[in-house]
Structures are given as C-alpha cells and as structure tokens.
C-alpha cells in the first residue's frame, strides 16, 4: 500500500507546488473563505516581525496564534511553503495509519459480535468484509490531499493546516493507544504527545476542548492536563483563548458569527457570544452518551460540529472532516439527501467568491447576499452531518434487529427516528 500512497503524495505536492509558483497564490491568500483572522499568514509574519523588534506579539490586536507557531516559524520562515506542504503530507499519512488501525479494530469487533451472535440473522449484506475495506485508508488520504479546500488552505499558508496535522496526530495516537492499551511504556510518551496536542488544539478558538472527551472514552488518562498548564505560558494563552471566545474581529468569513455581531448593540453582545459559543460545547455530552461505543464516529461528528460552529471557521476545517467520508462508505445506502446536500455545498462554495465580488468590488450587492450563502453552506453542512448520524444509527439498529422489519401484525414496518 505504500506505493499508491507515495504516488498520491507526489501528485498532491506537485499540484501545491504548481499553485505556489503561479500568480494565483497571492489572490488565494487574501480570500476570506480560506483565511480567517486567527489563521492568516500575514498575521503570523506580523507577529514574527514584532518579536524581532522586541515587542510582545500579543500587544496589538493583530496576532492571535499560540507561541508554538512563533517558535516553529522563527526558524523556518524561509521555508514556509515547504513546511505547509509537509504538514499536509503528515496529516494525510497520520490519517492513513489511523484509519488502517481503526479498520482492524472494527473488523475484530465485528467478528466478536458475530461469534457472540449479537446480530440478527438476515443482515448478511450489512456485514463489512476486509476486501471492501482495503482501499479505505488510501481513499482517506486521497480525499484529504486532493480536496480543493485543502489545496487552497495550503497555498494560502493558513495555519489551519498545522491545526489539522495536530488533530490528525491526536486521532492517530488515540487510536493506537486504544489498540495497545496494555502497553505501559508507550503511555508516558503518548501522554506527552497528547499534552502538546491539547495545548495547540485547545488553542485560540478555545473550542477544541470537546475533543478530550472521546479520548476519555477510550480509557485514556488525561495526565496531559498538567502538561497543558505547564507548556503554555499562562497569560499569553489566555489572551489567545479570550480572542477566540469573545469574537472581537468581525471580518466576514464562512461562519455564522460576524454578521450577527456586526449589527448587534454592545449591551447584548456578551449574552449572544455565550449563546453562540455554547453551541460548540453543548452537543458533546448528548453525543457522548449516544455514541459511547463508537468513539471514532463521535470524533468525526465532533470535528464537524467544531468546524461549523467555531467563531472563525475556514474551508480548511471543513476539509478535515470531509476526509473521513470514505470511512463511512458503508452508510451510503442509508443516506437520504446526499445528492441535494452535495449540490448545496458545491453551489455555495462557488457562489462565495461571486457574491464577494458583487459586494466588495462591483458594489451592486451587500453583506446580506454573502451571509445568505454562508447560512446556506452551514445549513447544508449541518444537514449532511445529521444525515450521516441518522444513517449510522439506522445501520446499528438494523444490525441488531434485522434488515426486514415487521410490525406486530406481520406487515412491513418503517424505521422512524423519534
């Protein structure tokens, strides 16, 4: 499997290198859909030059990244393009190995449940075979690397790519830890790694703390919490977290926050900030209760919810959870609205730049048009995630209760979500 993966990596790097050299790189790095105030490369350069001048980068309202980014780019600023291409490649490799291990776990669990006779007798076509699961890790890497969203984020040098790498490694270590739970000497190393991950993950947006919960479910001790407090200098990180949580910068992006807060009175803004930010954290507990036996699916839904409801989303966040779609290929037959939702997402992605042009350059539209497309895009994403969730639950139900459901009087029954 290494050769196809290497080929995919080569193609991806070629596409990114070609775009870096073309005149589009400048244009892409200014698009609001691809960079946000938290992940823009220009702000990183600004912070670095402030540091060179001896001023704290956090003293202005421009730089909102974690200290890790400064430390990383202080030495690598000349090779920035290479760094971003390598981070994309690392993300893809991490996801590849994570999904490979995950597939093994899934297959083992399925065999166990079959032997324990937990499945209904007529669900033969729902059982997954190793043959159909063989190409899934490669497809995941392909989906991530050749997704136009990822390519755009990479060419724009948005630090969202680094974010994605750390989340991918977090997922990889979580899965590997779950697989090798009894091996103690790995525990310490993985804890350390996870602590560093949490540091950057629980980062400017402050919104990634919910990712801790799935790792708890796998029996993973968060000794990392003390590492969290140790690695991050307290006042700097609190600045960055405050920025993400209080949303002072209202540059338009593909999220839901900017329009509301642009037209809101000061008096009410604190209340509405709390209401909006609760949305990110709120779904963790109910989902954890429902999906306690399927932590990776829970992680997928959680990443998607974070990508939709965070204060400054970009298309790079969307690309990360889209990479997981091949893993749930077997749910395809239960998805009800996949055609309409795919059309909505593609149409909205193309209409973003058109309506931005009409608003800012031609002057014949206004912010309402752009926000309408933002709303449609987010509604499409939410419907897509709930479609996958429902399909997952349906499949679980069919597995245990049989594919052809009959009501009490013998007629065919329909499964309805209550």
């Amino acid at each position: 499997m290494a050769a196809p993966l290497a080929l995919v990596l080569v193609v991806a790097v070629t596409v990114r290198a070609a775009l870096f050299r073309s005149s589009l790189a400048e244009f892409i790095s200014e698009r609001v859909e691809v960079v946000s105030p938290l992940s823009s490369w220009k702000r990183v350069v600004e912070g670095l030059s402030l540091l060179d001048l001896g001023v704290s980068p956090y003293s202005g309202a421009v730089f909102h990244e974690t200290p890790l980014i400064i430390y990383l780019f202080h030495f690598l600023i000349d090779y920035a393009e290479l760094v971003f291409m390598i981070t994309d490649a690392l993300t893809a490799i991490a996801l590849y190995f994570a999904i490979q291990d995950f597939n093994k776990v899934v297959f083992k669990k399925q065999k166990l449940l079959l032997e324990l006779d937990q499945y209904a007798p007529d669900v033969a076509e729902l059982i997954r075979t190793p043959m159909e699961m063989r190409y899934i890790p490669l497809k995941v890497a392909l989906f991530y690397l050749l997704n136009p969203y990822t390519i755009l984020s990479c060419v724009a040098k948005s630090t969202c790519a680094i974010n994605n790498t750390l989340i991918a490694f977090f997922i990889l270590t979580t899965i590997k830890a779950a697989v090798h739970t009894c091996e103690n000497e790995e525990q310490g190393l993985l804890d350390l790694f996870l602590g560093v991950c949490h540091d950057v993950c629980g980062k400017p947006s402050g919104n990634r703390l919910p990712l801790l919960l799935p790792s708890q479910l796998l029996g993973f001790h968060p000794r990392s919490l003390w590492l969290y407090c140790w690695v991050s200098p307290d006042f700097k990180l609190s600045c960055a977290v405050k920025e993400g949580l209080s949303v002072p910068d209202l540059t338009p992006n593909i999220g839901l926050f900017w329009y509301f807060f642009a037209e809101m009175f000061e008096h009410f803004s604190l209340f509405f900030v709390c209401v909006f930010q609760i949305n990110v954290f709120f779904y963790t507990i109910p989902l954890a209760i429902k999906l306690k036996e399927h932590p990776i699916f829970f992680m997928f839904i959680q990443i998607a919810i974070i990508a939709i409801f965070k204060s400054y989303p970009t298309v790079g966040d969307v690309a990360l959870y889209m990479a997981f779609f091949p893993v749930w290929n077997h749910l395809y037959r239960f998805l009800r609205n996949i055609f309409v939702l795919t059309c909505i997402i593609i149409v909205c992605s193309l209409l973003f730049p058109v309506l931005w042009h009409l608003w800012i350059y031609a002057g014949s539209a206004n912010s309402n048009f752009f926000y309408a497309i933002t709303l449609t895009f987010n509604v499409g994403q939410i419907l897509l995630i709930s479609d996958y969730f429902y399909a997952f639950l349906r499949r679980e139900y069919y597995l245990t209760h049989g594919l052809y459901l009959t009501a009490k009087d013998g007629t065919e029954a329909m499964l309805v979500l209550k």
Partner: protein
Amino acid sequence: MGLLSDPVRRRALARLVLRLNAPLWALPVAWLERTMRSVGLEVYTQSFSRKLPFPDETHERYMVSGTNVYGILRAPRAASTESLVLTVPCGSDSTNSQAVGLLLALAAHFRGQIYWAKDIIFLVTEHDLLGTEAWLEAYHDVNVTGMQSSPLQGRAGAIQAAVALELSSDVVTSLDVAVEGLNGQLPNLDLLNLFQTFCQKGGLLCTLQGKLQPQDWTSLDGPLQGLQTLLLMVLRQASGRPHGSHGLFLRYRVEALTLRGINSFRQYKYDLVAVGKALEGMFRKLNHLLERLHQSFFLYLLPALSRFVSIGLYMPAAGFLLLVLGLKALELWMQLHEAEVGLEEPGGAPGPSVPLPPSQGVGLASLVAPLLISQAMGLALYVLPVLGQHVATQHFPVAEAEAVVLTLLAIYAAGLALPHNTHRPLSCRVVSTQAPDRGWMALKLVALIYLALQLGCIALTNFSLGFLLATTMVPAAALAKPHGPRTLYAALLVLTSPAATLLGSLFLWRELQEAPLSLAEGWQLFLAALAQGVLEHHTYGALLFPLLSLGLYPCWLLFWNVLFWK
C-alpha cells in the same frame, strides 16, 4: 490584380506598415496643454504604451503608444477630496475633435464659477479606450492589464462620477446614451435619470440604443419598440464590451455614461450650446452629491429611456431556466439510484460476492477522463490561438489576427471530433452488461450540474449573458441523450453551442438595428468579433472569452460526449 492580390505580398505590406509604427494622426499634445493652461487649469500629461497580443485589424494598431492630456479645475473652497471627470476619447483619426472643442469651452465656462465643491478633471485620451484604461490604472495605482504607463503627476481625489463625450459634428440632431460597460456592469440608474431630466429641460432629443422613445404605450407599437430596445440592451450587455470610455470607469466603482452626438437627417438641429447646457446642468447636479450614487438600482434593463425593468422582475426567469437543469439532474439521480437498487436485490441473497461499489464509485472513476479531456480542450482554446500565431503565420499565408481567429475555429471544430475516442477504453470497465445506461447518465448528471453552476454564477454577475446562454443551452442540454433521433439532437446541440449563439446574436443585433446582414457580411463580422473578443480580454480584462472557452465550451463538449455515447 495588383500589389494586394497576392496574399504573401499583402502580408508583407501589412507587416511593414505596422512595424513602421508611424502614427497617421497624433494628438496635438502641446497645443492642448497650452490651451488648457490658458483657460486656467492645472495641466498634466501621461504617456503610455502597450504591445497588443496580435495586430488589431479593426483599429489598425499593434504597438500602441500615446499621451493623455488632462487638466484639473480645482474647487475654490474645498479640500480636493472628490472629483468629477469629463472625458473625450480621441481615436486614431480626428473624429472626436468637436468634442475636444466643447470640452475646452466648458472648461473655460466652469473656471469662472464659484460653486464647485468637487474638482473637475478634463481628460483627453489618445487611442480612445486604451488611453482611458492607462489613465485609470495610473490614477488608482493598480496594474490589471499589463499596460505600461507613466505615473500621474497630478491627482484630484476620489472620482464620484464621469461623463464621456463623443461628437462627430458641430450640430447634433439627437444625443445617444450608452450605459453598458465592461463585463455587463451598469452605472447607477440615477445617472441615467439625471441625463434624461436635463435633456427634457433643454428640449434635446435623446435616444437609447439609437431608438427614440415610443410615445404611446397603449397600442402594440410602443411595447414592441420597447421590446426591441430591451433586446438590444441585452445583446450589448451580454457581449461584455465596454461600449465607450464609460465602461472602463465602472470597474473602479465610478458611475459613468457615454453621450454620443448623432447628426442624422432631421429638420431640427441643436448646436453645441444646447449640448453644453445639458452637460453643465449634469455637472452642477453631480457637484451637489454628498455621497456616491447608490440610492437607485444597479441592475436593470431599459425598454425605453424613462422606463426600466428591475432585477426582481427578470431574475426569476433565469432562475426557472436553471431549475429545469436542476430538476433534470434530480431525475437522472433517481434513475441511477433505482438502477442500483434494482441491481442489488437479485445479488443480495448470495452475499456480496460481486462487490457492487456504490454508484458514486463507478460514476466518479469513469467520469474523470471525459472531464479532463474537455477541460484540456477548453484550455487549448484559451491558450493556443495567441501563443501559436507566429507558428501559424510561418506555415500558412495569413496575417496574425486571421491566424488567431482561424486557430480558434479549428480547435473549436476539433473538439467536435473527440467523443468517438474518449470513452471507448472506458466502456469496458463500466458494468455494462446489466446497466449500459449508467455511464452516460452519470456523465450527463455531472454536466448538468456543471452547466447550472456556471450559468448561475454568470447570471449573477452579468445577467444578460447568463440569460442568453441559458435560453440557448438549457433545452439542448436537457434533451441530449444517446437514444432517439441522434442527428436531430446533434444539430440542435451544434446550433446552441456558444459560437453559434455568438453568430446568431450578431445577426439578431443587426436585425434589431434595422441594418440586416447578408450571410457573407455576417461571417466577416463574426470573425472580427472573435478577434475583438480575444483582444479585449487581453487589453481590458473582458471576461467573455475566458468564460466561453474555459467554462462553457468544456461543458458543451460533455453534452456532445453524452450524445455520442456508445
């Protein structure tokens, strides 16, 4: 017979004349500077030069260099933060010299008034639109089109509005107004209302699209004439050309109009005093503006000078056309889905021994090749004609402009020959025994969505172009399928291809202007229009050529592919 009958000699002579780069008529820069200075303006000049991608045969220029002259009338008591522009584009002959005279007279008159709150810039450009583009780029400090221009020495603040003037003689019978700008952008309707008000006040006859206002709207004649005017405006907006200097101002969010003085066979003629009075009135009104013009509509269609159709009324039409594509795509999806469900039932019992991948798997893998090939053809259509003109002129006895146009047509026609080669190696991989239709249905689904997306995006930015292409391409696209009367569908598809739409709209345009074309003239005009389209893309950034070649032509090729699916 003679020197020019031999194509080789003709080509050599044309090359010689162009390479000499000897201007046949040049702007009298020194005289203009002196006169403007004597009127009391601050005078500056700007030189510019540009090498066109290939020789322009309509305007007979290739390596263009010229000088713009502009004088700024500073407002006596204001801070020079805003300005208005009166521009006179001078071409390569002296057809606009009357307008220069009017400009200088107006400058002298305005100089004596005390009520100006904005600066007024009197701009005389050489090589008409090229000079205007050079001036605008230097004024706004951008470089969009690769023009080499010297920086401007004098500026006057943000431009609020501009009026371009073209007069061919010293008496006019009517004033024609042009509103359509580059890429179909329109000025604010307020500016047009302003012009119409002052024409009515001064008793000037004003026309739109060369047609007078219909007087009675109750009988059939009025609405019919209004419909003709509307169609003319749709065709001009769809072409995306800047029909006058004003078209280039619109890109920088400066509301602008072009006024053309027409001298036709009418009894009552107006002299330049009347035109000057109307212009003075317009400038005084624009002087009063506190904000940029934004109150009225930006997107409208005009059946007459005093009537307009707002976007809320005409956008649903385009929406319904695109809905047809959407519904057709949905129907194909349902058919593909049913075919897949029908296939699974007999194969369900023995287990997944023949692993039927979901329909997206089969569809996506086999669709990549036709998509890539049609996009590659589109890219070739966009890039090759200009790149390959020198190679073509070496091997064939044609001039460069002809080479570009003929290469365009050759690549376009070559695309038609493709479909028999793209999917033959693919058809063996598709599950063809049980569902032979799945291949072309998946391709048609993708093509329908692609077409709907493109037409939607185009309709949002340039409604007329989107609507025109939708009315021609949507029926043919929805009907295309390999079964049924293939020659009929093929003829329909060819007749509605982008190039045929361009040809048809040229004929329609001249028909509406009551100057119908014969077939030979129409073909010549078509070739000239192709050359102009490519040139305008390179010189002004007009988007018609890239949209048609990189967007709609590959999409149309996909439907051609579907039609000839084996």
